[in-house]
């Protein structure tokens, strides 16, 4: 972000200094813990079903397993969501859509990769049309299983909440930040 010349004062670039000051303030203990506490209990996954694990994802949201008690409520628009669940196999065609959905979500955002296919292809490991999700998103939690039980989804939510409370999500790898290429056409 470029600042006009009038923005240059003795402390250097005003905007950068302000951002640093805000970061410093937000990352101090009382504010940070309040922020992380509230993020941890408002994980809203975007309603985006990539494959057949969606059946167990839907079961996790049903009355028997009731993921809403963790503050986990599937919602429609990616603009109001902060969690992307990759439910099973990610095909090349779907990966482009998934990356667009991921980029539309506001920060801080998290990704849970559900199922063996989302880890390393699973039963479709030698298919010509699949993508490993960790190649295109920074995945926070992997759920093994084919398909994972709804209890495993609940477990993943708890793990992600713990990760958020410990502020471990802030250390993201740089390689995912260049949003130019989707990386599906190899």
């Amino acid at each position: 972000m470029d600042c006009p010349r009038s923005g240059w004062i003795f402390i250097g670039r005003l905007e950068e200094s302000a951002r640093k000051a805000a970061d410093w303030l937000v990352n101090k203990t009382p504010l940070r813990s309040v922020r992380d506490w509230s993020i941890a209990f408002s994980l809203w996954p975007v309603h985006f079903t990539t494959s057949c694990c969606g059946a167990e994802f839907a079961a996790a949201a049903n009355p028997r397993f009731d993921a809403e008690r963790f503050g986990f409520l599937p919602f429609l628009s990616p603009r109001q969501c902060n969690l992307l669940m990759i439910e099973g196999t990610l095909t090349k065609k779907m990966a482009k859509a998934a990356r667009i959905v991921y980029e539309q979500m506001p920060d801080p955002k998290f990704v849970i990769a559900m199922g063996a296919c989302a880890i390393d292809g699973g039963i479709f490991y030698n298919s010509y049309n699949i993508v490993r999700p960790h190649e295109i998103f920074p995945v926070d939690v992997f759920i093994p299983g084919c398909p994972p039980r709804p209890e495993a989804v609940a477990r993943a939510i708890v793990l992600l909440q713990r990760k958020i409370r410990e502020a471990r999500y802030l250390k993201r790898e740089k390689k995912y930040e260049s949003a130019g290429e989707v990386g599906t056409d190899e």
Partner: protein
Amino acid sequence: MTSQGSRSSETDMGYGPGTIKEPGFRYRPMGRDAEGMELYEIFIGPQHPASGHMRIVVRLDGDIIVNADPDIGYVHRTMEKLSETREYLKSIPLFERATIIDSANITWPYVRAVEQMLGVEAPLRAKYLRTLLAEINRISSHLYGFGLTGIFINHSTMYMWSFGDREIWVQLAEELTGARLTHTYIIPGGVRRDLPQGFKEKALKAIRYMERRLEDYMKIFVYNPVTVARFREVGVLTKNDASRLGIVGPNLRASGVHYDARIAEKYGAYPELDFEIPVMEEGDSLARLLVRIEEIKQSMRIIKQVLDKMPQGPFFADKYMRLIPPALRKHVAETGRIKLPGAFIRLKPPAGEAVARGEMGHGEVFYHIVSTGDTKPYRVRIITPAFRNVVLFRHLTRGARFMDLPVIYGSIDYFPPEGDR
């Protein structure tokens, strides 16, 4: 619902040159048709508030849908090709991922086709057990469809109820097979497990509960004035069109065609059971819902009969039982669970072809297997019901209002991973 004469389904199916000037229109947000009317193009999905997995490109003239084009292939996981690289037994778990909510029904015809080539027949008890699991799966598949239909028209109660009640049938299937969704229960030669103790009481309890709940469904969802207003006479599929387009399953039967692969093919225990095929004449979205409700009732009737008539005897073919070493065979007899020897993976059908079909919750599934006498098939062709029904998106939405699209989508009960394979 219909206005401005946009519905011209009898003559123009949307395949030939229609009212829209092609090409080039597709990529512009707005254009004009032959009469100078402005058209809007709306892309729905693949991130949308329902089952996901697919995009619908809708062209609108005001509020009237000129054309709705389903863009499938988002879940194309190349199952037919992968099955050529795997042994016959390993393809069963592969194919059940196509319709994970109905996994017994989609693999049963495959197993029957393999059995035809191998020249082996399942014992009678195995046929009854297969029928039992297939009907449990059919009920849970229909309930899944109801839940999605409910959430399509923003009826969250129906979603919560039917997904909550679906768990009962999923649990029953889990008790029988050991897995919630991916059972891999039906294998060449029989089934993988015997009937567990106390299953009958649990199943009868589930049936009693479900019969009561279906009455609640009728009150709060199906005969709800809002639902009736949105579903009745929306997306009407005539009998003529249904048979001409090759529609299968409840969508076909809701249009007045009495066809069911369970009757036509006479497989499993179905010839010995007494049940009806629900048929309705209206062909609209409400009829498609009601046919599914009736099918749930008939499935429960079948389950009751299967549990009453369950014959004693082996649940795995003797021909393959002899492959199991004697120590393991004793274990199988004690626990009622097959432990397959490693040699079982090298099933080698002779060179030839086999076809089989079966009725899933969504409709008829068809398998064509070509073998060259190897341990792996040369080619497996699957024609799934969802792929045959996807044409309805184009056919039924013509001339409907835009808000009818979710209703039509929900009533077709389209399951994209099944269609894309």
